[in-house]
């Protein structure tokens, strides 16, 4: 993985596979605290404490049909966070969803870039019309907070039965995310 938003995409796919219907994604850049925090909070099936531990092991996968027992998504994300003096936390309970919190030291030389957050979120939102996404981006710098909220449930309600892949809707979501990312100074993090 070359950037943080690719990891984010991978984690969102995990949530979808855990049958989440609501996924909250938060990206918080706090300049004073020198921290970039990613939170993914889902209402999927959740995991027991044993599975949480196993999920961080590269030789574990929840996919029963996989011939080679390899699952690199979570271990690589964790490794990349820890390489930049950050940390990786997963909290979950069967039946109560999963919350994943990943911190990166903002100005650490080994921190990977945030990458293309817009295309990541656009693909996830349109590619999973059955899931409602709550996106929250915020930048805190010199005591000023700029934030952006995007709630796909409200959009789907307004659209009635029009699919998210309708051309004008793709452009609408793309443009909204673009503006939100610009307004919170997330385009070049």
């Amino acid at each position, binding site marked *: 993985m070359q950037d943080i938003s690719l990891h984010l995409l991978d984690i969102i*796919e995990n949530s979808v596979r855990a049958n989440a219907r609501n996924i909250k994604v938060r990206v918080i850049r706090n300049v004073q605290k020198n921290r970039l925090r990613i939170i993914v909070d889902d209402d999927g099936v959740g995991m027991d404490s044993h599975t949480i531990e196993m999920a961080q092991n590269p030789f574990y996968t929840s996919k029963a049909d996989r011939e080679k027992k390899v699952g690199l998504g979570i271990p690589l994300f964790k490794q990349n966070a820890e390489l930049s003096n950050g940390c990786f936390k997963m909290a979950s309970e069967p039946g109560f969803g999963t919350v994943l919190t990943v911190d990166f030291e903002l100005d650490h030389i080994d921190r990977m870039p945030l990458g293309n957050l817009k295309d990541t979120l656009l693909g996830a939102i349109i*590619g999973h019309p059955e899931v409602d996404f709550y996106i929250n981006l915020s930048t805190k710098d010199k005591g000023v907070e700029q934030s952006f909220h995007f709630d796909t449930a409200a959009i789907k309600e307004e659209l009635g039965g029009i699919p998210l892949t309708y051309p*004008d809707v793709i452009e609408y979501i793309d443009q909204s995310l673009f503006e939100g990312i610009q307004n919170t100074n997330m385009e070049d993090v």
Partner: protein
Amino acid sequence: MKTLADLKKIREKAQEEMKLRGGNTRIKIVVGMGTSGIAMGAREVMKTFLEEIANRNLTDVLVTQTGEKGLSSMEPVVDVIEEGKPKVTYGNMTPDKVKKVVVEHVVNGRTVSDYVVATGN
């Protein structure tokens, strides 16, 4: 700034169109978005499909994402599903190949056999 009022206009326009041609999805595209697919460029593949749909104003195409299906060595992998036809799976996809698949397969109905890695179910 985009507002919900913009969506209302989009909905009205789309509903008018659907009255004219019916609201059916003609073709469904599924982009594999497992860990190895993502690492090999599936996000850009997905984005290119969405761009092409928007630019060409294709109103009867659906694009979704799914997890891995055991074709890791051929990622990014894309399924093209049309009613009454066997599923076509394209492998080793790139944004350029996506553009070709959209023109040839989605618009003109001709499978791009060079990129096919599997057919049927």
